[in-house]
């Protein structure tokens, strides 16, 4: 196989993404796992950029690194209790947990693989000219064809946000 500079870049980004993804599962400290997860998101964004999808790559960084990773970090910091740390080590159902985790991972991978194989994109001819994605065309597609689902998603997110704020606003009476 002829390795070009572009191919080397792809392998570098792929190793970064997969390595960071593996580290998320293996690192013990949750905060560290969340930050390595952010690195994994960065790797996915780099892969998008490598494919020439600048818009998707930058959106990936903006949303996943800037919002999702920070959200995960906040959730870990605001809910963690130091004394609950030792309970998860070992335990009676260790084997069962490993099996369950493997099962979930395999099921997810299977679903993804089926989706990729089913789309038929693996057998399609690669066009000689690199496809140029026009942002305006993407926007028109989104606004012209996908307005109802877009608005629905917006409504669902707003409801979730209002619900979250309502839950967080409940003031507990001190047990005096």
């Amino acid at each position, binding site marked *: 196989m002829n390795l070009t500079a572009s191919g080397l870049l792809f392998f570098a980004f792929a190793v970064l993404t997969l390595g960071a993804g593996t580290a998320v599962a293996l690192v013990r400290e949750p*905060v*560290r796992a969340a*930050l390595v997860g*952010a690195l994994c998101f*960065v790797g996915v*964004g780099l892969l998008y950029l490598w494919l020439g999808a*600048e*818009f998707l790559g*930058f*959106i990936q*960084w*903006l949303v996943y*690194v*800037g*919002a999702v*990773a*920070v959200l995960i*970090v*906040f959730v870990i*910091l605001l809910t963690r209790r130091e004394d609950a740390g030792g309970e998860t080590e070992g335990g009676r159902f260790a084997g069962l947990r490993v099996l369950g985790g493997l099962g979930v991972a395999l099921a997810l991978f299977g679903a993804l693989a089926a989706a990729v194989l089913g789309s038929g994109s693996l057998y399609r001819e690669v066009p000689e000219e690199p496809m140029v994605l026009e*942002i305006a065309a993407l926007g028109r597609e989104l606004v012209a064809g996908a307005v109802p689902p877009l608005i629905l998603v917006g409504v669902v997110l707003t409801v979730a946000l209002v619900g979250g704020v309502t839950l967080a606003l409940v*003031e507990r009476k*001190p047990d005096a």
Partner: protein
Amino acid sequence: MAVTIPSDAAPPPGRTSLAFPARRPGLTLAAAAGVLVVGTTLLVLLLDRKAPGILTGAVVEALAHPATAPLILKAGVLGWLAEGWGLGEPWLGLASISLSLFTIVAVFMGLFALTSIVERKVLARIQNRYGPNRAGLWGLLQPVADGIKMLTKEDIVPAGGDRWMHLLAPVMLAVPAFLVLALLPYGPGMTVVELGVGILFFFALGASAEVAVFMAGWSSNNKYSLLGAMRAIAQMISYEMPLLLAALAVVMLAGTLSPTLMVEAQAGHAFGFVPQWFVFTPWGLVGFVLFFIAALAESNRSPFDLPEGESELVAGHMTEYSGFRYAVFFLAEYIGLFGICGFAVALFLGGWHAPLPVLDFIPGYLWFFLKLYGLVLLAIWIRGTMPRVRIDQLLAFSWLFLIPTGFCVLAGAALWHFTGGGWLGWLVVTPVVTAPYFLLLPRLQSAEANALRTYRFSEE
């Protein structure tokens, strides 16, 4: 060996006071002259390959056409590399990129050194002091002294902290700050990386700053660091929204995501003297103020500098940083300020365009840097005059006032588009974009909102 310390403050002969060593401008001058001589000799030795003809030609042409001088000089150096050294295509492209990057980094490092002394001087003048005035002429060598101090100080990693994350955090903050500089349109044809979605890249890079600040706060194993980092993230997320909304209005009316094309959309003068910058439209004026306020908060500048508020949090996420790593944080903050001010110039202040047609003889890149530095000076002025806000006031100001204003600016931009500008546009858009100021701000400024606050966790 015993060291004798003169106990009585008797100044040695030739000096009037023990407090400061006498200034020696002669030594400074001699050192500068030495560096110049050695540098010129090295340059002449290096250039001894067909250089004089090509390079002097380029310099003469650059002097004759100051508007495109940087481009001509770059072409001259590339031509010399191609002819004198016989460089081929992949290397020539690499040389071209390296030249651009080197120039940008050198210019902004110089600007950083200058700003670090200008800020202290201006602040001192505002506070009726002199500011640093001992190192070199007017204290101009203070950045050099500071740099040497930072480099030679001990580099401390807190016990129980995360060593690698502590090391990486300042780098993670500095690298995106420098990447932003490659996107700025310095002049016609002078954008280093021409990206169709430049403004999106800018916001994506800003997102990584939050992660970097959190890494710094968490890896320090210090409660003040962590509190400062949490504050910084809450602040950055809250003020990214108004920043985005203000930029979105420009994207809508310029019809592009590329900063260069946005600047080109602001060319020309109405009635022969009013520049067509977006800041001279009602939505653009409000949008610019919004963008600048949010920019101050994004770069942790006063009056929004409470992530590192020294009266309550020591120094926030930078508490445990010292020596060179602290210097990198410092650098990243200033470079970030330059980058965000550069975007404000490109989005609202007409980028490289001159304010009056008569002034077109001054090169565009000089206009760009003049406007950029004007905004930096404005930020310093604000730091010298405004008290720091409280954390609840900071968040309320963004969510209850700035973000609604952002939506009004967006609506105003849409109305401006549909009315086609002109007097009708002014009549329709002005009430829309100024409404939040009259309707929402009084509530934020009410006595009730600013009353002394007791936190529920601090009560017994």
